[in-house]
């Protein structure tokens, strides 16, 4: 979830110095290249759930994919979040968010995005914005029919990331 906000800065850096940027092998067509970084599942910011029940309740990788797409769609048109989402590389965001949620739910995914602190550095995310994103995620999970208790298993993993994401 936190990589949501992470792309603005890197996108700006790329625009400023295109020679410094290298495409990553995971990148999909349409992604803006960003500076290289060490890829590690630990960058996801939470250890994966041990039992597979929650991943199943989310509808597996396909369900996670639909929920993340819905989350991004909701957030892009959310006036509370437009300052953060407007300049964001949504192609990369959708991919890394899907990886992150799938990984944290214990699904068969690797997370290739950056860690939460560096991906949100200098974005100036507030607590209110963090919570607005959580509300959009809850809306997307509701729409997908994910049971409330399963939703909270994911939110419990995401909540402590606030410390790395929120800057003001």
């Amino acid at each position, binding site marked *: 979830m936190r990589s949501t906000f992470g792309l603005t800065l890197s996108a700006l850096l790329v625009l400023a110095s295109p020679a410094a940027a290298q495409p990553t092998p995971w990148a999909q067509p349409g992604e803006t290249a960003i500076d290289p970084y060490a890829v590690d599942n630990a960058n996801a910011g*939470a250890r994966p759930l041990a039992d597979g029940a929650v991943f199943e309740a989310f509808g597996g990788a396909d369900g996670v994919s639909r929920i993340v797409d819905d989350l991004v769609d909701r957030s892009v048109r*959310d*006036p*509370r979040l437009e300052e953060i989402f407007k300049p964001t590389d949504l192609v990369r965001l959708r991919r890394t968010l899907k990886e992150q949620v799938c990984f944290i739910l214990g699904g068969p995914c690797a997370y290739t995005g950056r860690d939460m602190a560096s991906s949100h550095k200098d974005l100036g995310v*507030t*607590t*209110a914005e963090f*919570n607005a994103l*959580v*509300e959009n995620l*809850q809306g997307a999970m509701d729409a997908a029919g994910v049971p*409330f*208790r399963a939703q*909270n*298993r994911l*939110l*419990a*993993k995401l*909540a*402590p990331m*606030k*410390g790395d994401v929120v800057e*003001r």
Partner: protein
Amino acid sequence: MFRRLAAVTGLWLVFTAGGAGAQDTDRSGKLLLTGGVSSVEGAGGGGLAPWALITGYGSPGQVGANVHATVVDLPDYQFRSGGIALGLQDRLELSYARQTFDTGATGAQLGLGQGFTFRQDVLGAKLRVLGDAVYDQDRWTPQVAIGAQWKSNNQPGVIAAIGGRDHEGVDYYVAATKILLDHSVLLNGTVRATRANQGGLLGFGGDRKDDYSLQFEGSAGVLLSKRLLVGAEYRTKPDNLGFAREDDWFDLFAAYAVNKNLSITAAYADLGDIATFEDQRGLYLSIQAGF
């Protein structure tokens, strides 16, 4: 009781109708129910006990505020509370509640006169000192707050006559709240230093005991949805007065957040014996409106 509550509800629905449909654009910074509801003493918490949560939906940099009206309809009395609370920066909470303890027909039997009513003003302050109940899901530490409640009762004469020492007093408390999100559970424990008799409605200190004593208030709830918290509370109380035994309080509650502007709490409350009248159990209804 219901007519009065319905009238108040109607009024607030009018006030809050504008905000109710505007959830998508609402700028309040906290998640539903994470400020608790309004306790009978005005502080954010459960119905009977203050929690460490700061009332309202203000995040850092924001202010949250709400008003509440509560009625507890008991066999021999009616207890009412109305008040206002501010949550500043999700850090400091200031509250005011006017409590009314209406003895109704029981007043005559107590020799106070039909419809005799005690009124108490409660000014509260609460400061969050440690932790975060919502976000600290990767550690066991709770959110901790310290608070004080200044209480002033309008019946010093009656209080003196029943053995009470003062009509004014201050309660001090420490509250710890933990939301175990992966279990959808909320827990709170509050320790209160108090001299209050029936929360201060019958004054402070008494002929049996005049000193402060430490009391415990425990709440546990399960989140059934993001809008609905159901649970139970237990509050121990001192027993300072010789003329009548004072019991612990207990309730089973359901708190429902219609949206961030309106929440309704219904409970079955058991307040035990009050001023020699036994088994005061009844319906607790509370409405909170704010942002």
